[in-house]
């Protein structure tokens, strides 16, 4: 059967209703604008993109549905205040995720560990479509993935380590990895000492 022109258009012959949904529109600049306004208004002190979006920034296409944001906060109470702020603003909140625009955002406070704290401090500045932001450096990203250490993290560590400053990574691990666990995991993944 030959479809009518208005039913199938362009690449892959996607049906029109799917094609309509698949217009490539990114919410990311809007979300980053919102994060910057959190800093300006003093709700958070600083932030850096981590998780799957940082993996993507460092060059690995990766399907992730949520944005992990490492945030500098004064205390656990400030973390609760962040949720209250968005609840009062009417944003959808689902489990730990706060929806900013259509993006589920997970905030990870710096008081989890010195690794998170330093990953934000050392984050690199970027501009996404004209919006200033910060993303964790590849060496810190590897250290954070070594903490999570899921099977997909191991694959990403191997890929990311190709572009990492390994002496810098080892320095970070020496300073922040008390029990040598992360260093051992790195050896396990990369297969050498």
């Amino acid at each position, binding site marked *: 059967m030959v479809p009518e022109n208005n039913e199938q258009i362009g690449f892959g012959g*996607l049906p029109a209703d799917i094609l309509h949904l*698949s217009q490539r529109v*990114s919410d990311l600049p809007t979300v980053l604008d919102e994060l910057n306004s959190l800093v300006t208004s003093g709700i958070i002190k600083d932030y850096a993109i981590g998780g799957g979006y940082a993996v993507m920034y460092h060059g690995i296409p990766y399907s992730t*549905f949520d944005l992990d944001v490492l945030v500098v906060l004064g205390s656990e109470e400030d973390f609760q205040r962040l949720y209250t702020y968005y609840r009062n603003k009417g944003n959808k909140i689902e489990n730990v995720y706060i929806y900013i625009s259509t993006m589920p955002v997970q905030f990870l406070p710096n*008081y*989890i560990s010195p690794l998170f704290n330093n990953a934000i*401090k050392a984050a690199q500045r970027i501009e996404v479509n004209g919006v200033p932001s910060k993303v964790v450096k590849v060496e810190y990203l590897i250290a954070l993935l070594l903490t999570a250490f899921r099977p997909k993290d191991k694959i990403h560590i191997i890929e990311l380590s190709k572009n990492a400053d390994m002496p810098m990574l080892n320095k970070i691990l020496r*300073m922040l990895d008390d029990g040598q666990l992360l260093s051992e995991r790195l050896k396990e993944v990369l297969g050498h000492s």
Partner: protein
Amino acid sequence: MMDNYYLKDSKKFWDTRKKARHSKDKKLISLPFTEKAAMSERIQADYELLRNAKDPSNQFGLGVIPDAINELSIELLFTPLDFEEVLNNAFPFTQELQDNLESSKT
């Protein structure tokens, strides 16, 4: 930063997030194909934006923090300092200036 600032036991924190992630993954699996396709396109668009993100530290101007200074902040937090060494790392031109100064004296 004080040691007691950090969570003593982060297990509960991560367990909550693990459960939330599983619950979200389950929900995503059951989404209709059209929504999955739209989501996939959104992620692709985000990826393209991130890959085209500019690094403002390549420009000179406000807000530029050289890597060496970032490293300096790590050193300050966690290791005993040899200030001269750290400053030389942060400002590698210092030695050159010093050499020039000394040679100009002779």
